């Protein structure tokens, strides 16, 4: 049974293509506090590889990446303690 992750904010990037999913995520995280979690919804197939890489570079933590059928990807990203 998967643990539920509580998101502080939902970032909907469905229908957007690169670079907009990471751009929207960045803009949302800029307004959030360290430790808070953003739930990012995406349909861009490139986002599957982009978000792990983006989190690796920014230091924000990718808590979970999920793929629901029909090309919907969900990423839970926790804002880094220090950016």
């Amino acid at each position: 049974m998967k643990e539920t992750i509580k998101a502080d904010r939902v970032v909907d990037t469905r229908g957007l293509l690169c670079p907009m999913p990471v751009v929207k995520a960045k803009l949302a995280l800029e307004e959030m506090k360290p430790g808070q979690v953003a739930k990012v919804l995406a349909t861009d197939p490139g986002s599957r590889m982009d978000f792990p890489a983006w989190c690796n570079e920014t230091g924000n933590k990718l808590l979970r990446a999920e793929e629901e059928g029909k090309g919907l990807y969900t990423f839970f990203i926790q804002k880094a303690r220090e950016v």
Partner: protein
Amino acid sequence: MVEKKETKRVALVASKGTLDMAYALLIIASTAASMGWEVGIFFTFYGFDIVNKRKVHRLKVASLANPAAPLPVPNILGVIPGMTAVATWMLRRMMKKQNMPTIPELLDLCRKWGVRLFACSTTMGMMSIKDEDLVEGTECAGAAAFLEYASKAQVTLFI
């Protein structure tokens, strides 16, 4: 505890002033900036139009000599007056349909995130571009200054 990593840097050369190449450039630049990288772009030759206030809003793409252009006509017809406008209109429409930002919007985003814009001083002189034509924040630089900047970059691309 997040490990403090050394800031990465990407140095880009923008040598083309067509709508498609401006997208390629600014997508890479804005993505790198979103990752917290330092980004510097050296605008030279036709790439200069991207930081020219009077031109950045109306970049074009030609179908002529561009066999990959998605126009349903033989490539040679690209010489007909108006074909560049048609190709440009088509690309703009395709981008809009995908909810992509415009070039000025992407450029504004890059500036908000601190992307440095270097204007090639030779191109300025050659094409008689004045300081007031430049997008705000653009720094006039020569190749030496850019090379010094690029020498500290992990990624360098010529677009």
